């Protein structure tokens, strides 16, 4: 268990302990609160929504916290209605609209109507002066975990070809593709990463086709950035290939093929907002973090991962947690040979420049 200080069971144990502590008189100062959580897909998708739902389930176990949830809410007027209903009908004072498309215009529209409620959105770019004070955005630097996925993939790949099934060529996705590729090439510089964009967040048929076609081309380690990685994990395993997960742990779906995975640990963000709301402190408007801050975590290593691979990944992870490791540093070229970052220059994770990423790095076979 030494590799996984932040797995879910442990967090729940910690929370149970917190819950027990809450029965002491000290906790009476905290008033009861109702929290609303809104998902764009099903809560049990082994992916994006499940990662959020796991944090919501942990909140439910805290004393004095009531959680109301709604799944499969489209990014239309429907989500505005759900937010309104949570606040006006269920008495929620803190709402988590978790899909990217809920931010503008939906959350902003509802936030203006309910100035006393707090809103915390996943992935958006809250900007001082532009967005209301009762709204916020949280996100995690999960490219750190994708880099570690890459390090493991680099050690495990026999063909020297790894694959990435991606939804859309947007900055958050490109950042993951680049980090994964660079992680693998840090092990063996000759490795190439094939990327296929399916065009949307949930396209199970295209995801399976992409996985199969890359397997045919000799790719032997897969990872992805789509809402529900289930299909890709299962298809890769069926083809006898290896896979690194994303969003939540998919180890259960393919215990032998699953190497490791990049997971969110949203409980860190959720509790930050919850504590501020309960104690009446100002709403933290813009919070982000990586492995160090506990916003993201790695899945436990699968049974086939070799010792040297584990050791290499753990070393990089330790250096990331110590704040000594930058993923995006010069000299860095894109896959058309153009220099992106000059030698000697490096970007910290917090650098907003990285949130505008519009290139694929050297070693990626694919185009935006």
């Amino acid at each position: 268990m030494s590799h996984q200080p932040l797995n879910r069971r442990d967090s729940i144990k910690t929370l149970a302990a917190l819950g027990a502590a809450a029965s002491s008189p000290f906790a009476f100062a905290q008033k009861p609160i109702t929290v609303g959580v809104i998902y764009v897909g099903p809560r049990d998708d082994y992916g994006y929504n499940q990662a959020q739902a796991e944090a919501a389930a942990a909140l439910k176990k805290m004393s004095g916290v009531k959680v109301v949830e709604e799944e499969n809410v489209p990014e239309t007027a429907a989500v505005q209605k759900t937010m309104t209903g949570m606040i006006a009908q269920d008495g929620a004072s803190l709402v988590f609209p978790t899909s990217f498309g809920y931010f503008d215009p939906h959350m902003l529209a509802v936030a203006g109507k309910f100035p006393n409620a707090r809103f915390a959105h996943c992935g958006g770019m809250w900007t001082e002066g532009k967005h209301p004070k009762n709204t916020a955005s949280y996100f995690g630097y999960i490219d750190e975990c994708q880099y570690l996925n890459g390090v493991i993939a680099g050690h495990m790949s026999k063909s020297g070809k790894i694959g990435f099934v991606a939804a859309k060529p947007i900055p958050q996705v490109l950042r993951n593709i680049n980090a994964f590729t660079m992680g693998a090439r840090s092990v063996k510089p000759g490795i190439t990463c094939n990327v296929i964009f399916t065009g949307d967040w949930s396209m199970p048929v295209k995801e399976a086709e992409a996985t199969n076609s890359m397997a045919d081309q000799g790719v032997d380690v897969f990872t992805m950035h789509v809402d529900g990685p289930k299909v890709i994990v299962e298809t890769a395993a069926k083809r006898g290939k290896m896979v690194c997960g994303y969003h939540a742990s998919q180890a259960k779906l393919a215990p032998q093929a699953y190497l490791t995975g990049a997971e969110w640990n949203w409980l860190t963000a959720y509790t930050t907002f919850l504590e501020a709301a309960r104690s009446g402190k100002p709403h933290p408007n813009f919070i982000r973090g990586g492995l160090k801050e506990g916003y993201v975590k790695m899945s436990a290593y699968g049974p086939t991962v070799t010792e040297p691979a584990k050791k290499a990944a753990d070393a990089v992870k330790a250096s990331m947690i110590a704040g000594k490791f930058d993923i995006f540093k010069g000299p860095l070229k894109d896959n058309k040979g153009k220099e992106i970052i000059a030698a000697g220059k490096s970007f910290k994770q917090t650098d907003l420049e990285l949130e505008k990423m519009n290139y694929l790095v050297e070693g990626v076979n694919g185009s935006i």
Partner: protein
Amino acid sequence: MHSRAKDILLPIAAIIAALLLFGVFVWFAGVNPVEVWVLLFKGAFGDWYSWQNTLQRAAPLMLTALCVAIPARAGLTIIGAEGSVVLGGLACAWMAQTIPLPGNMMGTALLCIAGALLGGLWIALAGWLRQYRGINETISSLLLAYVAIGLFKHLVEGPLRDPGSLNKPSTFAIAEGLRISGISGTDVHWGLVIGVLACIASGLWFRLTSSGFAVRVVGGNPRAAQLVGLPASKLILLACALGGACAGLAGAIEVAAVHTSANASLIAGYGYAGILVSFIARHHPFAIIPVAILFGGFGAAGSLLQRRLGLPDASVQVLQGIAFVLILASEALRDVNWKAVFSRMAAFGPSEPTPVVIAGLTRNPDLGAPTWTPDQVRGDTK
């Protein structure tokens, strides 16, 4: 029973039966059915929030249902309203970012007209393919919807993209003055009024005008319509264009009232939901209004059901499924002669065997011949 009374009573009976069945269903899942019924009502029609929720969900469905209903009256089964919705939204956003428009109601009206035009052209294309190229309009309209979504994504993520929309590719937001606002301070936008007016207008068109009547004649029997000199193909194209215009208008309104820019969130399945609404309303424009509100109510009630009881979203889809299957099945009871059923039920006791009538074999009962029994028929004894 009078036919108009049947029109209203049969669906209501079907909905009540669906609610009872759904009660049994959730009871097996360990939830108190009475609590579910109360929440369903509260969520859809219980208070002002619920009403706003229901009506706002209903607004786009009225227009997309018309995209199925109007061509259906001309005898076509069009199921590609989704394509017109996204193209209507695209036309609206594209016009707002390329042509300087007055920032008032005139400008908004022009945006809506642009959406309606492109949406109308798209479905008219499906009608043209049928009339002049012999391509089945159901399949072509569905496939054209995929083409439309592909075009939409290409343009929104490419040439028309606002470079500032980093992680959610969108067109530029349309100007504040061009947006459609809520009706006097409520959350319900003017799209609802437009939807209701469109339903009433097309209902009256079919009922009161000669061109509307001509479309119905074409839908009833195109050969007969041609024999009496009606331009069947033109009327079919007109019906398709009008239906598509309604769906295109729905897309333009969604962009101008809700999304403020064209982006992938517009592809939310309104076009497909409209198919169901239109079929439940039996392609009758007036009936679309209450059916769309019922549909919106299911959505709103489902939301409250999830939040209060923690039931999965699928449970509401089960209810919708039961309700719509029963409503469609209740159509089978329309032609039942209820008096005969009741009198048969009243005549309690062992029933006489009904003679099996086989043409050419069974003797005419008017001749006063002895009753044939099934055995005799099978044994060919004369």
